[in-house]
């Protein structure tokens, strides 16, 4: 530790820390543009110049390591003169278009100019103009405003792993851009909007929608993937306008995925169901809630004599409270068929227990030294887990994958096995590992062969001090999922690695906690049909892996009740009752993420039309069925009841007695990242990206 004196205040710091970090930690403000704590140091804007005793010129605080006894002044005449001069230079070519700039009011350049700039400029010559290119549906560019801090360029290179923007030309003609007409395609691209200190890169769907000072920020949790990224939702008069990241080092750091940022458009989709609707003799009529719920209860009653005929399909993005109430209501009515793992078809491993979590904290992923990803396109499915893995890889971690071919990686892959049969490849790696450690296990591998790649992967896991196996969404969708689980967990044991069957969606972990004891057989229900389906927060024809079968099952059912936020032609065709539910910011509840953080969030946006949070609908249904214990007044009461159950995840003990003789390769089932749920399917901006083109069933 060293002692530094800044503006007369003595601050303790580690030797070698940059002056700007030390000042930040002591809440002494130093203006900056190019510096960002998550990016490399560029020291090109010079805004952070400070006066260091003994140095005859002002020095950049972002690139000056502290030394013991250093005396720094950020407000001396020398520092102030430097700040004013830099500010004047930066403004030479910056347009005076703040009144029509979306960044106005939340612009670092405005703020710093106010605090540190001079009131007049000596520059009276013409300012330059930079032409704009269309970089896609998410980011709006106004490159004349760019001050060349290169944060966006460094973000692409260092974080997104995909350098899409660059600085072309030189001197006065230097421009930041793509140089050619090209969209910015990273799944994390929206973060450049936050990084850009000026209005050069702004949120395209949000353009001209509101001024920052009209907005109220509400802390909440992103509703799509299992990372549970912390976000702020900005509302104006109770209406959701946009989403920005909320810093949480332990979860999302300062980033969020594009899916989390841009999906909020869907709240205002024309598809929103705004009133309860009931079908009678082929005609839909809207009615008020009490009537619609009465009809629901009456129609359901005759089937309750034999509740086996009823199945409930539930979104893995439902809140913990909703899942719990669904289960409580269902069980009270004798219904046991409840499932949220809609993108899975092989449930035979349930007998051993279910544990879909990350076997470590997200931050610990960065310290891994060998990782094998099996059937997972982490970059698109869990972008921020992939970001941690990428950091590990840059630190020397060996990343190996066993995946279908054609996936795009943004990190260095050591060995890549392209396959349609995850099971056979896993068996080969396991056999290679067995030979390496000279050990036999319960798995019958006599007929299995392996090659040098299998040995290399096994070896990497064995010699890794912190090695990990991770199963992704593609593995979970495999017809042989249970065999994959057994082989992978055995491989983890043999090689001394941790094992994570990664949860995909925002409350997969929570739903598993509550529903683990329900024996379910979704594949069977869809193939052989049920008389009644109750769908909560999903569109089965898009959200189920076996989409065609799901649609057929819905069409053939006698009664289909959808608690849904969105109306659609296909639901109108098969459903009998549609009850509008609130989503995202219109709802309150709790989501359990990949590392088992229980994150509760409040309601702060008014629901569309008559839509109600699902937990309230379930509560009223409980009352109408005259059931005990449905008198909640808020989600906190439901949560308290859940907590009192002391639910915990038990580590499954996979028995490895498998028969590998009948392995058929399965066509891979990649879930396109912008089709994963009703909200992202209805975000026009996301749907206009290349990632969505292949895919959205609604298109």
């Amino acid at each position, binding site marked *: 530790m060293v002692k530094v004196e800044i503006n007369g205040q003595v601050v303790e710091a580690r030797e070698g820390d940059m002056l700007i970090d030390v000042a930040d930690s002591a809440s002494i403000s130093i203006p900056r543009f190019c510096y960002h704590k998550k990016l490399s140091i560029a020291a090109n804007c010079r805004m952070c110049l400070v006066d260091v005793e003994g140095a005859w010129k002002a020095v950049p605080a972002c690139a000056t390591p502290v030394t013991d006894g250093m005396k720094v002044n950020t407000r001396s005449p020398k520092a102030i003169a430097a700040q004013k001069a830099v500010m004047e230079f930066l403004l030479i070519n910056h347009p005076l278009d703040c009144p029509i700039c979306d960044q106005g009011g939340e612009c670092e350049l405005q703020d710093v100019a106010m605090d540190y700039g001079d009131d007049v400029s000596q520059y009276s010559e013409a300012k330059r103009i930079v032409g704009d290119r269309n970089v896609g549906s998410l980011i709006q560019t106004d490159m004349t405003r760019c001050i060349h801090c290169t944060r966006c360029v460094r973000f692409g290179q260092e974080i997104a792993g*995909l350098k*899409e923007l660059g600085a*072309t030309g030189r001197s006065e003609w230097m421009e930041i851009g793509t140089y*050619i007409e090209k969209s910015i395609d990273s799944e994390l691209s929206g973060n450049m909007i936050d990084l850009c200190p000026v209005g050069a890169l702004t949120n395209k769907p949000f353009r001209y929608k509101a001024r920052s000072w009209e907005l109220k920020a509400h802390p909440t949790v992103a509703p799509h993937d299992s990372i549970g990224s912390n976000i702020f939702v900005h509302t104006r008069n109770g209406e959701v306008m946009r989403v920005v990241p909320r810093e949480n080092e332990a979860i999302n750091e300062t980033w969020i995925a594009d899916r989390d940022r841009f999906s909020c458009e869907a709240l205002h989709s024309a598809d929103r169901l705004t009133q309860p609707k009931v079908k009678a003799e082929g005609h839909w009529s809207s009615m008020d809630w009490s009537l619609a719920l009465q009809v629901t209860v009456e129609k359901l009653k005759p089937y309750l004599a034999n509740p086996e005929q009823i199945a409930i399909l539930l979104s893995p993005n439902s809140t913990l409270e909703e899942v719990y109430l669904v289960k409580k209501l269902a069980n009270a009515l004798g219904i046991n068929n409840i499932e949220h793992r809609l993108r899975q078809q092989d449930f035979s491993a349930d007998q051993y227990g279910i544990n879909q979590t990350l076997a470590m904290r997200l931050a610990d992923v960065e310290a891994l030294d060998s990782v094998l990803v099996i059937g997972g396109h982490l970059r698109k499915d869990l972008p921020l887990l992939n970001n941690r893995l990428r950091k590990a890889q840059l630190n020397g971690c060996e990343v190996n994958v066993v995946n279908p071919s054609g996936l795009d990686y943004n990190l260095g892959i050591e060995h890549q096995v392209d396959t349609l049969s995850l099971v056979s490849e896993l068996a080969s790696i396991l056999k290679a590992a067995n030979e390496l450690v000279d050990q036999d296990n319960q798995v019958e591998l006599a007929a299995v062969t392996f090659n040098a790649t299998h040995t290399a992967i096994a070896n990497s896991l064995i010699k890794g001090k912190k090695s990990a196996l991770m199963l992704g969404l593609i593995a979970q969708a495999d017809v042989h999922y249970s065999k994959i689980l057994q082989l992978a967990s055995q491989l983890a044991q043999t090689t001394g690695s941790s094992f994570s069957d990664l949860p995909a969606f925002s409350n997969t972990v929570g739903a598993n906690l509550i529903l683990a004891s329900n024996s379910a057989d979704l594949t069977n229900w869809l193939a052989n049909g049920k008389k009644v389906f109750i769908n909560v927060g999903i569109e089965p024809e898009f959200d189920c892996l076996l989409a065609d079968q799901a649609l057929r099952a819905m069409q053939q059912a006698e009664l289909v009740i959808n608690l849904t936020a969105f109306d659609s032609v296909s639901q109108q065709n098969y459903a009998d009752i549609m009850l509008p539910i609130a989503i995202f910011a219109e709802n309150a509840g709790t989501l359990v993420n990949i590392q088992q953080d229980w994150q509760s969030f409040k309601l702060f946006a008014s629901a569309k039309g008559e839509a109600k949070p699902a937990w309230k609908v379930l509560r009223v249904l409980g009352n109408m069925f005259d059931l005990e214990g449905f008198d909640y007044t808020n989600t906190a009461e439901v949560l308290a009841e859940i907590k009192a159950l002391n639910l915990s995840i038990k580590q499954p003990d996979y028995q490895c007695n498998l028969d590998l003789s009948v392995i058929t390769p399965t066509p891979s089932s990649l879930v396109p990242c912008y089709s994963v749920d009703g909200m992202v399917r209805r975000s026009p901006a996301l749907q206009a990206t290349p990632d969505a083109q292949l895919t959205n069933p609604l298109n």
Partner: protein
Amino acid sequence: MSSVDTLNIIQGDVKKRIDRWLARYPVDQKQSAVIPSLRIVQEVNGGHLTKEIMDQVAQYLEMTPISVYEVATFYSNFEHQPVGRHKICLCTNISCMLRGSDELLDYLKTKLDVDVGQVTEDGKFSIKKVECLGACVNAPMMQIDKTFYENLTEQRLDEILDSLE
């Protein structure tokens, strides 16, 4: 100009020349050879680069295309529009300017009947304004191809241009 396959420019002799440069750098730092590589492909393409050609360099050197564009637009030796068989680079920086380079430029433009950045009808010449080439002692000056011509006058200019094939 011999015909070159611009869609597959890194082959044969070109490939050999680039590989010679690559041999000087560690295998995982192929981008070190970007400037010589661009110079080679520009030369065989008759003096200028295109997006397709830069993309091939990017691929060959395992760089992202934008990183190659950055280099190729930063250095003024790289051209992005067709140039004449002889590229006249006239210095218009301070010393040369004080010694009459602006007038020389006007003379040149009228003589060749082209503007800066354009190519004469016969494809022989194009004009480019450049910054100081470090020959201020003998200003004004210009560079054509690989030769410096100094202490220029209108008459010298005529002689030099006439002497070129």
